[in-house]
């Protein structure tokens, strides 16, 4: 047995925090491995996030989350330029429905001004209604904040991970942490050894960015004292026919009875309302509830009265990892080399790029040598969103590759070429494909395109369709009929090819 290979940094967790850190470290001459427990990156906390790049106003400046909020906002602007994920700088309208709330929204505005957030404006009711005609006509006033934006958190995280990989970071999925070896009394500064199903991983530094499970992973490393509680947020996505209902993210003034239900114009032009905020016991409880829906719509209608539950096409819930301090828990621990990046709740997604830089500084402080590589490429080819292109551009794309002219998803106009591109960039599951391309995300919710997506995934992954899953694990989609033997993994399950060499299996 030779000496085990020791990586410079093991990042545990492929959410917004882990992937932006991986990408930040990819500019240095380092051996970095990211281990993700789920079938794809962004499948944990990041997946069911509201997708808001916060303006910078909301978290108090004396907290770590407050300090990283606005720099993180700028960081996402830059990442968008470099990587080309969907990004809409829609701004934020913070609404005081009642006179009594005017002081609250003004104090929040002042908090933002103190933190250096530019461009905020107090608005009269008429100014607010001119910009957002569907707001409650009885509103008392509003604050306009231009710096807020929306992204698809999963799409952005997946492209950040892709960029990290292109610059040499290794990403391994379906690698939940099973155990971390205790400190070797004879070699206290020996590398840490992290066990996952693929075997032991040796790392000089280990970043704990495991979201809801950061307390359990910390305990494995012998780091006590961290408790992560899940706080559920339910979100409701509306049909495209209400597109344009609001143009900016509409926030209520925070109230004691409500943590703030928002009306969000998503980056895809749909409208989303939510979230709720209720502590739950189960870290896997992402169920939506009838009470949650009632609460969301009652609160949201206070802001935008015409909102209607009948327009819901999909609903989901996410869990925020809440540490006992209520702030981010970031930094070295008593275990040498083991660094926490835990308790990353709102504005965690926003803060992530700044948090990544903060973690790089911490690693440097802890003795990691940072030497920039000469061939780091901050950009990556931007994914093509066919539906968003002009007709002339669409013509050119289709002329170059006829697969741009074959529709896979009717509701969201996703083409075969886009699906193949997503698979080549790492989509391995139906959900992963959906999050990257929007195939299956529209009003038919996959009733028409599921089979095409399954077939293309099976072809791309070189597995039978029965081995393709919705989101990894045991989430299989179809099984063989009883009278047919299960084909082996290399079996004859490939779609037929027509003369143009493209799949005609649907």
């Amino acid at each position: 047995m030779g000496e085990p290979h020791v990586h410079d940094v093991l990042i545990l967790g492929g959410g917004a925090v882990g992937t932006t850190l991986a990408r930040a470290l990819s500019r240095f001459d380092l051996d970095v491995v990211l281990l993700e427990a789920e079938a794809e990156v962004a499948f944990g906390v990041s997946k069911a996030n509201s997708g808001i790049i916060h303006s910078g106003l909301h978290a108090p400046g004396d907290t770590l989350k407050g300090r990283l909020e606005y720099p993180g906002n700028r960081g996402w602007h830059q990442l968008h330029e470099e990587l080309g994920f969907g990004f809409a700088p829609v701004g934020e309208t913070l609404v005081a429905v009642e006179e009594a709330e005017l002081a609250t929204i003004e104090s929040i505005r002042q908090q933002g001004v103190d933190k250096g957030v530019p461009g905020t404006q107090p608005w009269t009711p008429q100014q607010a209604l001119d910009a957002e005609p569907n707001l409650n006509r009885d509103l008392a006033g509003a604050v306009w904040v231009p710096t807020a934006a929306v992204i698809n958190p999963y799409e952005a995280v997946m492209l950040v991970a892709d960029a990290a990989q292109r610059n040499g970071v290794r990403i391994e999925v379906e690698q939940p942490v099973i155990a971390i070896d205790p400190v070797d009394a004879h070699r206290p500064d020996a590398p840490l050894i992290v066990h996952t199903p693929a075997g032991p991983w040796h790392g000089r530094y280990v970043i704990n960015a495991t979201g809801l499970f950061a307390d359990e992973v910390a305990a494995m490393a012998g780091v006590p004292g961290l408790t992560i509680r899940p706080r559920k947020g339910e979100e409701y996505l509306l049909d495209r026919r209400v597109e344009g209902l609001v143009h900016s993210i509409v926030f209520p003034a925070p109230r004691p009875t409500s943590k703030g239900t928002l009306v969000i114009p998503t980056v895809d032009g749909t409208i989303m309302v939510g979230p709720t905020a209720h502590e739950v016991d189960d870290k896997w409880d992402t169920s939506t509830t009838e009470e949650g829906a009632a609460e969301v719509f009652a609160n949201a209608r206070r802001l935008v009265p015409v909102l209607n539950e009948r327009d819901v096409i999909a609903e989901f819930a996410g869990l925020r990892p809440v540490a006992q301090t209520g702030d981010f828990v970031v930094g070295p621990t008593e275990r040498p080399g083991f660094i926490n990046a835990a308790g990353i709740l709102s504005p965690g997604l926003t803060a992530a790029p700044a948090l990544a830089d903060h973690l790089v500084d911490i690693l440097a402080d802890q003795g990691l040598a940072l030497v920039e590589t000469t061939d780091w490429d901050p950009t990556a080819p931007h994914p093509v969103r066919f539906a968003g292109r002009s007709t002339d551009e669409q013509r050119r794309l289709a002329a170059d590759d006829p697969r741009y002219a074959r529709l896979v998803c009717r509701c969201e106009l996703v083409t075969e070429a886009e699906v193949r591109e997503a698979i080549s960039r790492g989509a391995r599951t139906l959900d992963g494909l959906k999050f990257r391309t929007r195939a299956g995300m529209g009003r038919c919710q996959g009733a028409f395109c599921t089979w095409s997506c399954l077939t293309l995934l099976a072809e791309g992954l070189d597995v039978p369709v029965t081995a393709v899953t919705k989101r990894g694990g045991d989430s299989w989609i179809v099984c063989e009929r009883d009278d047919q033997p299960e084909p082996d993994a290399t079996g004859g399950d490939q779609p037929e090819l027509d003369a143009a060499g493209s799949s005609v299996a649907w």
Partner: protein
Amino acid sequence: MVTTEHPRQLADSYDVTIVGGGPAGLAAAVGARDQGAERILLVDRDPTPGGILLQCIHSGFGLHTFGEDVTGPEYAHRALEQVVDHDVDVLTDAYVTDASSDLRLKLMSPSTGVATVDTSTVVLAPGARERTRGAIRIPGERPAGVMTAGLAQAMVNLHGRLPGRRAMILGSGDIGLIMARRLTLEGVEVAGVCELLPYPSGIGRNVVQCLEDFDIPLHLSTTVVDIHGRDRLEGVTIAPVDDDRRPVMSRSAHVPCDTLLLSVGLIPDAELAQRLQLRLDPVTGGPVVSSTMETSRPGVFAAGNGVHVNDLADWVSREAQVAGAAAGDLALGRHRPLEDVHVTPGHNVGYVVPHTLSTSRTQTVSFRVKEPIHGDTILRIGDVHRRKVRAVVPAEMITLKVGPKLLDGCAGDTLRVDAIPAGQEEA
């Protein structure tokens, strides 16, 4: 056999363009050609026209259209043969993504790329889509194994795979009933069918032939209130509902299953109708149409499940033939009939199609009742037509033929369509 050619040129303009190659589109093409239209283009999104008929491998089709009982694929094949015999330009694997008010269509297909064609008239035959879990808002987790009955039908009948091993079905629409039988025949255990309403949503013969003949339980006034399973579905919670259709949670029960099929209604696919800003019927969700199936935008016709959901493909073909013929007539410069009578849903009638009639021609009026009437029922169109039938249920579309003789003297009138228990007519 019609196949996609690589590459191909389309004409710059057409007399009639038909969007959709299911039973409606195929019949519309024949109707247009029979009227003498020369340049006809039929655009279908699939590699083979036929639409949803291709996955409906059960029988029960064609009694009215072909005079014999055939399967869905056979029905589609015969309809497609007629289209080929009629020398219609068929473009498959293609999708119309936009339509402007001056009837310039934008379409895409691997064989044509992104193209535009001008057309004198267009027939929209897009079919319907199924309501989803999101639309009926079932709370719970989001595992694999929850899907519409139509998707499961495609998996089994077109692709030879099973959606699971033990299924529960929510909704007693026809596709759900047919899939209960289909899955049972494939060796999948069907735990039962839940229906929110106190009566089945599908037609009577399907309840008998697909459930009763296979001892599959039908739970009326029952719904699914929770979905369990992190990766794959592990079970559902079902509960009876009270008179206000609210679940009675104290009487809920857990049903282990790995598959939940939803057969909770179809909605006309109104995507292009919306782009063309057609007037829509708020009840059907499809366009408002005249007696020749012309929509609120002159030159734009619509037919089939894209207008209102039919229970028989035969009715779709009949209606679409009218639409195609009228589109052909208009394209050739012939005058459209004067639409001088309005029809509107009256007592216990959910919707009526078409929305206007002409005193100069014979036309079919289709409608559905809102609530079942068990017993003799009077069907009435204004005071010009009255017919007694045995019973009516929402699941079965009612059609009445209305000719010029009946409508004599009705020009300018609005006729209410009523369905009333016999003996209560005056009440």
